[in-house]
């Protein structure tokens, strides 16, 4: 029943398709069962979980997306920080954020607990959307509009770090997202734009 004792360096004469020992069978069964749990978790989270990279995805002309973002920024501009407009659109609306070397445009101001459709794309090369300090990360690919339904659950002054190499100035590419709480309390006038309190209620 058992295979003749041999190492993995020796050729195997005859038929080697023999039944495995119980220990091996048990482990393979456990490992398979665990893989099924791993498999079940992803679809399950789409139904029951609150964080999914689903959204609505479509192709878009990078220049058209950029133009749409400029139009959006002009329409809902409420302020300005170092030349970048601060934009507050009504809850439930579509908001646009574009990455371009080496800047995120514009500064979004959102309301805590309200859902927005956040459109992400790039004007030029790949960028990485990394919301700090919440640690939400998405790949931004030029020519593709990634529209995610986002509900900020914390208020504060957040940063967007670029975490995909986009050129020599990559490490300077940082943007802002402001989330005001349910009472609409303004976060800061942004002259200093500290992030220390970000994420704290």
């Amino acid at each position, binding site marked *: 029943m*058992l295979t003749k*004792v*041999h*190492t*993995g*360096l*020796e*050729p*195997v*004469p*005859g038929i*080697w*398709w*023999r039944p*495995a*020992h119980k*220990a*091996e069978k*048990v*482990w*393979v069964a456990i*490992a398979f069962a*665990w*893989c099924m749990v*791993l*498999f079940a978790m*992803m679809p399950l989270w789409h139904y029951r979980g*609150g*964080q*999914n990279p689903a959204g609505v995805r479509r192709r878009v002309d990078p220049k058209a997306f950029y133009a749409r973002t400029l139009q959006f920024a002009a329409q809902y501009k409420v302020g300005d920080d*170092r030349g970048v407009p601060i934009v507050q659109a009504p809850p439930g609306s579509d908001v646009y954020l574009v990455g371009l070397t080496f800047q995120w445009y514009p500064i979004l101001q959102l309301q805590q607990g309200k859902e927005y459709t956040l459109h992400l*794309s790039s004007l030029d090369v*790949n960028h*990485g959307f*990394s*919301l*700090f*300090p*919440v*640690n*939400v*990360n*998405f*790949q*931004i*690919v030029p*020519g*593709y509009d990634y529209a*995610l*339904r*986002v509900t*900020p*659950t914390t208020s504060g002054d957040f940063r967007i*770090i670029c*975490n*995909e190499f986009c050129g020599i100035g990559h*490490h*300077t*590419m*940082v943007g802002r997202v402001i989330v005001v709480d349910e009472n609409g309390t303004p976060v800061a006038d942004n002259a200093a734009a500290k992030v220390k309190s970000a994420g704290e209620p």
Partner: protein
Amino acid sequence: MSVVSTPVSRTCPTTGRTIFADAERLIKANAVVSVVALLVGAIAALLLVLTRWQAVHLLPAVWYYRLLGVHGMNMLIFFIIYFEMAVLWFASTVLLNARPAAPRFGWFNFGLMLLGTLIVEWAQWSGNADVLFTSYPPLKAHPLFYLGVIFFAVGALLVTCQFFATLVIAKREKRYEGSVPLVVYGAVTAAIIAVITLVHGAMVYVPTFLWSVGLIGEVDPQFYRLLWWALGHSSQQINVAAMVAIWYMLGGLTVGAVVLNEKVSRSAFVLYIMFISMASAHHLLVDPGFSPAWKIVNTSYFMYMAVLASMVHGFTVPAGMELGLRLRGYTDGLFGWLRHAPWGDPGFSSLVLSVVVFGFVGGITGVTLGTEQINIIAHNTMRIPGHFHSTVVSGTALAFMGATYYLLPLIFRRKVSFWKLAKVQPYIFSGGLLLLVMGMTFAGSFGVPRRHWDTSFSQSPYEVLFNPAVDIFLAVMGIGGIIAVIGALSFIAIAVASVFFGTPITDIPRGAPIVGIPNGLTNPPVHAANVDELNEALHAPSRGIAGATPGTLALVGIFLVSFVVYYFVNWKLLTFLWKIG
């Protein structure tokens, strides 16, 4: 090769195998270039880790990004693939007592790979390819960079074809009886995955080259990422298959590890071939170009069957070692076999550290980060390099180093130089990497990005202040990185000194330990004549489910618990995020 004075083949006095001179030369050439690439990559690694350690911050930005590309190419492509070419030649000729197919063509292909390597090195060092390892368009490098990669990939693909041809020759010339050894079977798996990988390489780099010279208007950035990862991640699967084959080989050489069941181990290799390539999709989990259904199908249905294969090898490799040692009389208790193992044999310590770190750290983090939703808190953070340094470096590279300690006496016929250093080198390398990986993983959990020159954000318009703990993690990463580089440079020093200045050996006397020769060669782990009876006794039904390998069952039990805990902790972390859908 018509050098009159060189015999066509020799018989190895230690193993009794027939080794053909043509094959031996090809193995040596590939191994030497591989180590040179490792040296370049290791120097780059030191400079990079001293830059990412924010307190030191050594390199200027341009050179940080440039050397990051150099490090990626030299380590992940040149070091590993040249070594794998050596493994393919070794497995198809030495392990089967066979002659290599068309050795002159082998030299042509080696030359082609070398030409490609030199072109890529030129492009990167001269600043003509500051696009990092992944070279995502529309970032554009000098056309020669893409051409160099194509030359290298075509050369490697042709060597892989020669590997298959050599297998056919060995079979036809009846160089062995029955089925090929399990180690060769693993090498075949690696070679098949290599074909899949390199074809994708051609599919992605040929159009990109044409785009770089202006013949094609545009390369779709998302389509490029899809195809590139079919090359970039699948090439890591060549490594996995080659590494597992080497695990089986080192187990046999160092402690007389037995194959528990050929059906189980070989089926696991087949699962790799069938499913592992689709697992590349886990690089695209938070990309805009693909639907959740596409992501889930590729990373769950398919990837988890490859995970299953790794979990099977994760059992059969240590269990084979346990059974091998128990059959040789080390039967006391649950872990007596481990106490009696040759921990001073660098081949053995490399094997164990490779299995443990690859499984516990690399495997668990890899599967967890490769989950569609959990990827949101991991993508492009330092958790990613934290993961792959535990798989490809502390797993694959360390296994290759362990194999080298046996190839030096067997193929190069030299004693291993700096023997005392060699005995501790795997521990230094692996220990340093564990620190590096921990530092990177924890820093990444706080959102520290990978591939980033300045996490103090001194030049950015808005302040980004990381949790002060990040400084500690980056210091741990820095110190670990320095230790790991010391381990790598020690290996390089040992390999170079042995090959070029080592004491030549003709025959390896058995019995007493010899300085410079691994224990598995001076005291080969030979099984007793009545080993099959002993094996029956160890498998007696009275010993229950744990059977002959209770120690390994306990170890994989610990592994599974760690896996489950880490996996669900990450789901819990995910719930703290904003609502995203």
